C-alpha cells in the first residue's frame, strides 16, 4: 500500500490555539494522519484549531468527509475550527459543500490568529 501523500505539522502558537500545516493530498486515506495531528494539537486547554491549507495540492470528496468528521470531534471538545490559505478553487469547494458555515475561513494566518487573540 502507498504511504501517505500528506504531511500535517502542528504548531502551538498560543496556550489555547494550535495551527496544523497541511501539505499534500487530502483524501479519506489520510484520516490517520489528520486524527494524529488533531490529537497532538488538541491539548486540555485548546479552544481553537486553525488549519493551514496553503500547501494543499489535491482534495476529493473523501477528504471533505474527513473534515466533517474532524469538525464533529472538535465540536465535541467545544473547540472552534478555522482555516486559512485556501486557494479560490478550494474556497469554492468549501462553499459548495457548505462546510464554510461551520469552519470559518480567513485570508491568512495573521487574521485567523488575531480573531483567536493569539
Amino acid at each position: 500500500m502507498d504511504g501517505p501523500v500528506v504531511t500535517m505539522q502542528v504548531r502551538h502558537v498560543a496556550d489555547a490555539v494550535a495551527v496544523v500545516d497541511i501539505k499534500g493530498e487530502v483524501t479519506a486515506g489520510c484520516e490517520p494522519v489528520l486524527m494524529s495531528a488533531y490529537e497532538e494539537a488538541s491539548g486540555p486547554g485548546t479552544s481553537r484549531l486553525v488549519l493551514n491549507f496553503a500547501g494543499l495540492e489535491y482534495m476529493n470528496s473523501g477528504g471533505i468527509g474527513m473534515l466533517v468528521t474532524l469538525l464533529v470531534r472538535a465540536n465535541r471538545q467545544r473547540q472552534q475550527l478555522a482555516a486559512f490559505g485556501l486557494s479560490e478553487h478550494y474556497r469554492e469547494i468549501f462553499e459548495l459543500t457548505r462546510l464554510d458555515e461551520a469552519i470559518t475561513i480567513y485570508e491568512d494566518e495573521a487574521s485567523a490568529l488575531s480573531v483567536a487573540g493569539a
Partner: protein
Amino acid sequence: MTEAVDPERATSAEQIELSVREAAAAMTPPASVPKDVGRWAAKVDRLDVQQRDGVRGTNVAGRRLTGPVQGFGKMWQKTYRLTVPADITPQQAIATWKAHFPEFWPAGNRFAGALTGISPGDVALLDLAIGGGVKLSTGVFVLYADEESFTLMTPQGHMFAGWITFSAERDAGATAVQAQVLMRANDPLYELGMTFGGHRKEDVFWAQTLTALGARLGAGPDAEVSTRTVCVDSRRQWHHAGNVWHNSMIRSVFQTVAAPLRALRRARRTS
C-alpha cells in the same frame, strides 16, 4: 556622466530578455493547477432543474444543497461493500456504474439523470417508493466525479442531508465496489422515520443496488454485500429542526393527493 544608449541595441537587449522570459515560462509548468479541477462541480447557490421524463420532478428547483453540517439528526457513516472479479479494474467498475446508474436501483424507484451519465454539476431527479402508492420526489446533485469515484449531494427536503460516495479500489487481489453514505436525517420527522425502519430500508436499498451492480460486473450469486455502520455524532442539531418546512415527503403526499384535483381543473379549463 551621461550614458549613451543606442536605441537599436537597447531594443535588441529587451527582446533578448523577453525571449529568455518566454522561454523560461514555456519550460515552467503552469502555475500549480490542482489536479482535482474539473472533478468538482462549479459552485451553485440554488439548484436549477430541467424537467425529465418519467419522474414528477418536484421539490428540487430552487433548493439549496445540504451537507451533514446542515442536517438535524444523528450523523451516520454507512459503508456498503462488495467484491467483484479481479479482472474488472476499479476504473471499469466506476465507468459501468456511472453509465448505468439508474439500472441498478431496486424496482419501484426512478433516477432520472442527464443523458450523458454522471458528471459534476448534474442534477438528477428522483421518485422513491415510500409505500401507500406515494412516491417521494426529490433529487441529487453530482458534487464530484473522477475515474474511481463519484459523489452525490442532497438538496433541502431530501430524507437526509449529506453525501453518498460511490467508489472502487483494488483490495486483496480483487476489486471492491463501495457506496458510503455520510448523513444526518434532514429534519425531526425524517429522524423519526430513520429510527423506526428507515435505516433498515436504506441498508436493503444499497445492498440491492450493489448486488445488481455486482451481477453486471460478473460477481457470483453468492457474493455478499458487507455493511458497516458508524454513528459519527450521536447529538441532534435542534437548531436545524426548521428544515421540516422543506420536507419533500410531506410535500410529495400533498402533491399526490392534489394530482387528481389538478387534472380535473385542467380538464374543466380546456372544455
